[in-house]
């Protein structure tokens, strides 16, 4: 029976997968070419790797951009001839232009938020882990899954091409607020660059919807026998909520973009009113509201930060429990808090708009709901701490990044309490305080979740190990560096130093941070170098790493470790195993771990 027939049988019989006579499943009867295996692959594991590698490429580009603009912030007066070699007219005389600076800041934000931390993180791990951990041969629709990747890829190509247009890429910040983003006459970056940005983002939305629907369908319908929802590993729960968030909120973002496209190209006035542009004159538009866009944008924009952080939370819960050799503490509370965060994610978007002239009475509800999110977040943090308590901790690189994640999530989460309180937000809004806050809680914590996942599942992905020494170095440099970069930024923010400034040297109020900016930039470059080191380790180990010799190297309970070391298309040779218990029976009844496939013994204690 071929894989396709296999999948047919599986979907037609519903979630119970018991198809006889497929003992030769792991072998490939059908012909696979290079194109179908590596390029237009419909195998979820290959698609996951495609998402991962594409995400890495974007992470390097996005990171490099931050190095360039940090160079400007550190040395606003210096010239670097090589910059002109690299960027041409955008760095005449070796000095980055303001236009280029803003383009870099904008692209850095867009790329890191959407391409790396959304597609790279949940794209990779949803694709890789969902079928493997729920016990399915592939996604509900492998074809849509393939399309999801290629829409993402195309979005990336369009975004990349926007870097090369004559008027430059979009430069109005990743949030793309109109009128700035709507008027080419107000900023050169809002000309062709913005059209390409919008096209790229529209393609990206399509990609996430295709992916998200697929993840939801797979998790709901294709769990193996015995895998009830409450036996799912927390990774799957997190990815499930992430997909729901994306499916419900990305269309709203798209609608906001469509109105923006209309305003830009077809003379409508959804967002435009009462505008006089220097050198152009008064525009004909009247009656629109620039604030409308902000509502539409943040209705996705806020859930988006949870789209980033929930998968990281899921990965961390799984990796932490495995390496503490102890069940995750409060499994149901973990699911409940994920659910609470997912629901609240839709009810807090206007906290990004406290200083936009929002009705203060309306604003007060958003304060309340925003600070309410701290409760499920606190539950998660304390549950992770209790998971470590009296464990028997193995500091694998994945575990180190999980611990780092918890630290970052605490630090960044606590500053969220400042910003969610509107009266304080008036002071801190759009300063370096917010830059520090979201980089720690979303950027660094999200990346740490991703690294934890990569280090933990690398053996499953490639059948080899990463080099541990490099991994330890990678962790300690990144962890220390992230704090050294972002901790001082809080102080800059408390002094009111605004974000997205090209040069502070003319400001009496902010120029005393010149030395701090140099320090931050230097550390940022070192941390960036450490990420390059990780990439070298990654690609070297894919081909030359130490080979995995045992099926279950971490001693883990979940189903992916019951597959062959390098699972083929269809994942399990023979029948998909039946599940008899939850995923966290570590250290139970004196046993180090009990796989989910082990039937519950008569003598076993219940919890």
């Amino acid at each position, binding site marked *: 029976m071929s894989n396709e027939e296999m999948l047919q049988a599986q979907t037609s019989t519903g979630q119970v997968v018991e198809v006889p006579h497929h003992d030769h499943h792991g072998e490939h009867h059908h012909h696979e070419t290079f194109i179908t295996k590596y390029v237009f692959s419909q195998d979820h594991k290959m698609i996951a790797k495609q998402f991962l590698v594409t995400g890495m490429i974007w992470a390097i580009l996005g990171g490099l951009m931050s190095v360039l603009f940090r160079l400007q912030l550190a040395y606003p007066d210096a010239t670097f001839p090589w910059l002109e070699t690299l960027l041409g007219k955008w760095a005449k005389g070796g000095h980055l232009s303001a236009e280029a600076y803003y383009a870099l800041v904008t692209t850095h934000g867009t790329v890191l938020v959407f391409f790396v931390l959304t597609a790279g993180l949940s794209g990779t791990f949803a694709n890789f882990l969902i079928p493997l951990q729920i016990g399915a041969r592939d996604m509900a629709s492998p074809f849509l899954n393939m399309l999801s990747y290629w829409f993402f890829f195309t979005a990336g190509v369009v975004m990349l091409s926007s870097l090369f247009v004559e008027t430059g890429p979009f430069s109005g910040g990743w949030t793309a607020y109109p009128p700035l983003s709507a008027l080419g006459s107000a900023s050169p970056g809002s000309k062709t660059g913005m059209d390409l940005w919008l096209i790229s983002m529209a393609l990206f939305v399509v990609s996430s919807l295709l992916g998200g629907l697929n993840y939801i369908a797979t998790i709901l319908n294709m769990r193996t026998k015995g895998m009830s929802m409450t036996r799912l590993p927390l990774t799957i729960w997190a990815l499930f909520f992430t997909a729901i968030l994306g499916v419900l909120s990305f269309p709203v973002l798209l609608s906001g973009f469509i109105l923006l496209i209309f305003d830009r190209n077809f003379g409508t006035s959804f967002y435009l009113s009462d505008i006089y542009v220097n050198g152009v004159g008064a525009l004909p538009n009247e009656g629109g509201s620039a604030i409308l866009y902000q509502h539409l944008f943040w209705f996705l924009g806020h859930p988006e930060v949870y789209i980033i952080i929930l998968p990281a939370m899921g990965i961390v819960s799984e990796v932490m429990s495995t390496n503490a050799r102890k069940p*995750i503490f409060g499994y149901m509370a973990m699911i409940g808090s994920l659910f609470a965060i997912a629901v609240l994610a839709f009810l807090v978007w206007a906290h990004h708009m406290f*200083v936009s002239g929002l009705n203060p009475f309306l604003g007060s509800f958003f304060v309340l709901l925003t600070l309410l999110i701290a409760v499920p977040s606190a539950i998660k943090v304390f549950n992770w701490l209790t998971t470590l308590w009296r464990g028997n901790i193995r500091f694998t690189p994945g575990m180190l990044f999980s611990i780092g994640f918890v630290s970052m999530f605490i630090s960044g989460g606590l500053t969220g309490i400042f910003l969610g309180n509107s009266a304080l937000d008036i002071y801190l809004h759009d300063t370096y305080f917010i830059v520090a806050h979201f980089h720690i809680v979303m950027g660094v914590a999200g990346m740490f979740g991703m690294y934890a996942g990569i280090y933990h599942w690398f053996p499953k992905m490639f059948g080899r190990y990463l080099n541990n020494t490099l991994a330890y170095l990678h962790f300690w440099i990144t962890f220390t560096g992230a704090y050294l970069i972002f901790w001082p930024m809080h102080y800059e923010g408390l002094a009111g130093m605004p974000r997205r400034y090209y040069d502070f040297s003319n400001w009496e109020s902010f120029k005393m941070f010149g030395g701090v900016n140099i320090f931050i930039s230097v550390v940022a470059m070192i941390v960036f170098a450490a990420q390059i080191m990780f990439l070298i380790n990654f690609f070297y180990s894919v081909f030359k790493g130490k080979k995995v010799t045992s099926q279950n190297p971490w001693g883990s309970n979940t189903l992916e470790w019951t597959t062959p070391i390098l699972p083929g298309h269809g994942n399990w040779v023979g029948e998909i195993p039946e599940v008899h218990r939850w995923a966290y029976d570590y250290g139970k009844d004196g046993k180090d771990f009990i796989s989910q496939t082990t039937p519950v013994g008569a003598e076993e204690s219940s919890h």
Partner: protein
Amino acid sequence: MSIFFTIAVVLLVFVVIFQIAKASEYVSILKGEEKAGKQANKINGFLMIVFLVLGLIGVYYCNELMKGRIPLSSSLEGDKVDQMLYLTIAITGVVFLITHILLFWFAYKYQENDDRKAYFFPHNNKLEVLWTVVPAIVLSILVVIGLRNWFIFTGDAPKESLVVEITGKQFGWIYRYPGKDNTFGKKYFRNIDPATNSLGLIWADNKEMNQTADPASFDDIVNEQAMYIVKGRPVKLVINSRDVIHDVGLPHFRMKMDAVPGIPTTLWFTPKYTTKEMQEITQNGNFEYEIACDQICGNGHYSMKGIIKVVTQQEYDVWAVTQKPYYFSAFPDKDPSAKPIAPVDSTKQTAGTTASDAVKSIARK
């Protein structure tokens, strides 16, 4: 050349680190992987404690180094912000300390050890209720304090407030005072002429645009140099934008509000120190209250600076009398004080009366 040199050095460092890392992998195979793994585990466990200790020292040191750079609050409302800030720092600081000490201490203490069995502890309802309820209560306190301030800050400005209109444009600020009549004249963006009528005041009838001249607009005072406000007197800013979204950011007064085209917004505060007093307090002769644009507005965003001069009532009165209505700078021939025929003495006389009227009218709330 230096860039190639730098790249070469970086590459060399990479190669060295990589070789060491590879070598350590072989060494671990020679030594026995289990033993090597245990050793690595011990090192990482120890580093957890090192990180905690050095990190906390770093936090303290960073605070000592930086706290002096946060400007003094210069408004009564800013003091409330600061109080709230210190309370929030205290509460989150305690949580930060406790959770981080637990995190790294647990990591260190419960590192893998052959003699220890992990404790099977899947859940405990009492504990979970505890850390649901306690954060909820603490947060409620913060919400109550926050909302009380929020409604003060965003509520109506006191009646005696000085009202100033501030309009953002790429890349600068335009300030407008209502003039003698204490009423802002009407404006319409299609009347804007950057040279003579930067705000589009309605000075003339225009049938096509269905406008009739607004008499209140003739005495409005407009300038782009600095905003003058009075120490101890609340000031209400009416905020507009001419093109894209800007933001009136006032770090010293702890206030901020977006300038949105087509939708006027407001903010108010009560300045506590004059600019001169701040120059003495900060021991910086160049000190100015700066308005920083806090919403990205184009390539000149970083240079969109405004100046607020906080002065005493007396100084303000003196400044106010020197201000001419904007209308006269657009139409100098209509300016009565500029008439060259008038004798010197009587000019002074006229200017004097107009000036004192202007002061009275402005002071009249």
